């Protein structure tokens, strides 16, 4: 058991030490914009490896014990060993420190990514979002408006300022790995970074009544020029 535990600890330490900074800042040119969605995918992959190692080790030990210590005769009893004081403290403190080390490692990486998520880059294109039962209203600078279709230019960070005119909604862009609630009486925000033209799903992820699941639409990422033309047309209208 001691050996197994040492192996577990070693696997953790090695894993933690070998994992360099996993978020988006690494290897990026100075001045370039970090994409939160990319950072998300990298960190999620990292955590997936982390929890899989933990889970496999834990499950393997459990299965090993389950098979090894099957009862062989009806009168057989367990070994009922008592731990010495040193073993007791060891089995309390060492796992606690290993878990905490992993927690702080994950928390530090999450915090770095969090700072990217929560700080829209300078020069972001700002769009106002007003949610209502059961549609999304997008209002562009200059007054153009759209319903359920969020058209954005490719290659530009987009910042959304969001509020709601009735109940709580939540604007979820699953492909851009981000969401935040839209509430009456409060303004929330986030930003995302659409790089290539294409269409993505947007949904509502806070329960808002009968048509909650009908409150969906599209993010349409357009080439800058096309977007400018569309915006000009809509603004005039």
């Amino acid at each position, binding site marked *: 058991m001691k050996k197994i535990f040492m192996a577990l600890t070693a696997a953790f330490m090695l894993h933690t030490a070998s994992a360099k900074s996993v978020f988006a800042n690494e290897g990026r040119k100075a001045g370039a914009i970090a994409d939160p969605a990319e950072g998300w995918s990298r960190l999620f992959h990292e955590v997936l490896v982390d929890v899989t190692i933990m889970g496999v080790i834990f499950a393997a030990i459990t299965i090993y014990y389950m098979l090894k210590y099957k009862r062989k005769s009806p009168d057989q009893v*367990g070994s009922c060993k008592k731990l010495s004081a040193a073993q007791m403290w060891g089995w309390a403190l060492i796992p606690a420190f290993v878990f905490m080390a992993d927690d702080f490692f994950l928390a530090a990486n999450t915090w770095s990514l969090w700072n990217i998520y929560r700080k829209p880059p300078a020069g972001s294109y700002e769009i106002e979002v007003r949610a209502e039962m059961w549609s999304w209203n997008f209002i562009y600078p200059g007054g153009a408006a759209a319903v359920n279709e969020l058209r954005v230019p490719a290659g530009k960070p987009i910042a959304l300022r969001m509020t709601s005119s009735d109940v709580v909604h939540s604007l979820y862009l699953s492909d851009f790995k981000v969401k935040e609630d839209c509430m009456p009486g409060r303004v929330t925000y986030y930003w995302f970074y659409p790089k290539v033209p294409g269409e993505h799903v947007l949904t509502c992820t806070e329960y808002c009544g009968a048509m909650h699941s009908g409150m969906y639409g599209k993010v349409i990422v357009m080439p800058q020029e096309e977007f400018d033309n569309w915006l000009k047309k809509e603004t005039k209208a």
Partner: protein
Amino acid sequence: MSAHVKSGFKEWIFTTDHKRIGILYLVGSITAFCLSGIMAVLIRLELWSLGPTITDDPTTYNVWLYMHGAVMILGFQIPALTGWFANYLAPLQIGAKDVAFPRLNAFSLWLFWAGVVLALLTFVVPDPPDVMWTGYPPYSVVTSGNTALYSFTVLVMGFSSIAGGINLIATIIFMRAPGMAWGKLNMFIWTVLAAFTIQLIFVPVLGSAVTMVLFDKYLGATFFNPGMGGDVLIYQNLFWFYSHPAVYVILLPGIGMIFEIVATFSRNRIFNFKVAVYGGVGVLVLITGEVWVHHLYTSGLADWLRVFQMVTTLMISVPVGILMISLVGTLRGGAIDYKTPMLYGVGFIFVFLVGGLTGIPLAMASLDLAVHDTHFVVAHFHFVMAVSMTFAIMGGTYYLFPKMSGRMYSETLGRTGFWLFLIGVFVTFGTMFFVGLDGMPRRYYDYQMFPQLENLHKVQTIGTMIIGLAVITILISWIHGLVAGEKAPSNPWGSRSLEWDTTSPPGPGNFGGRSIVVPDDWDPYCYDKPGRTL
């Protein structure tokens, strides 16, 4: 029950005996489980295909969701663990003749039944509540659904829980048999004490939150109306300030029951018992009130608060990890017999492992921004709480079955039920993780925007049917055991714990007139010395 006690209808209704009250809690909570289980089947059938499948009214579907969530938690898990297990087992394990306040106990039982009846009214009232079990305003205030029914169900169940909590805490502190020192208590007793402590501190917060909703909707108050100076986020904070601790109210007695099962069927001492009690159960109680913001990572709270509670949330891994190490360590050097309760015991370890580890990405605020309120979360909390605790309830009920009924259940039926349950769970909720990662939000009546997920949804619906089959098998095994089971000996599992040191079922006063005096070298997990009768 015993031959010298009448067991007519009247004797059951007016009973103040903790064992009968426990059994009535069991009947009530299993009724609630079956009802909200049927809701789950309806929900999954609706999601079988794109577009309307079995109902074309989304509100009907939302009422099913409300029933499933609210009744599973308030009507099944909390009463089964803190009503049925705690009432039945705690006095027996501490060598008491009954609880401290038997009539208060009967009162909390009937309040619970009143709560079940209120929940059932959902099927009768013209505009049933459709506010989910969370009841977030402003929706719960503006909806035409009957939010009052929701508030009153929560309040009645809450009162029942507080009365039960005072009772069991007083019982454990003052009713222990002479010589039953704190250091000699069972793991289950510690977890019950911890769960009820949490319940007493936090239930009033939930009570105040749902009462404020009631005031807003029916009496014109404006707690949550920003147009009149209110704030919608107050409710979410209050609600989760209770409802995260509520997870531990459910989790702790369940894990305590799993410890009892694993120790008994391994015939082994609980590994590192003191550390599991202080570092596991104790630290969970201390940490439980400082993590609720992880339910609100996407609610626009201050960034520092979200980051701070991310750290506290990740720290939950420390006490839970210590408990899991103790659980697996108990298997080591044991003499394991895989009877039905033990299958649930070890099955719990794997289900809880999947649930616990998938909680780590959810605890990390940045990752949560993408998966919050998707099916990934639904899968996570079904593994970590819903299913793992249902395993504890099923396993514990099989474990206590001979004691409470005086009869044995059929092992074949019991094992069949377990394997169906396990397979069904992994098919349903294992698949649900992938659906969630693909962006499917929860509480959706339809998923037109994700047509590619239809096949995965079909797999989940099939998994739910397997779970349904498992539950039917389990119920049949219980009824079969009650009607045709062999007579149970007083200690069928060869346990050393005090609750088996009496007849099956125990008569009034629990120990057949004996006054239990606990010797100095008593240990409920002492298998290396011959067993004895106190």
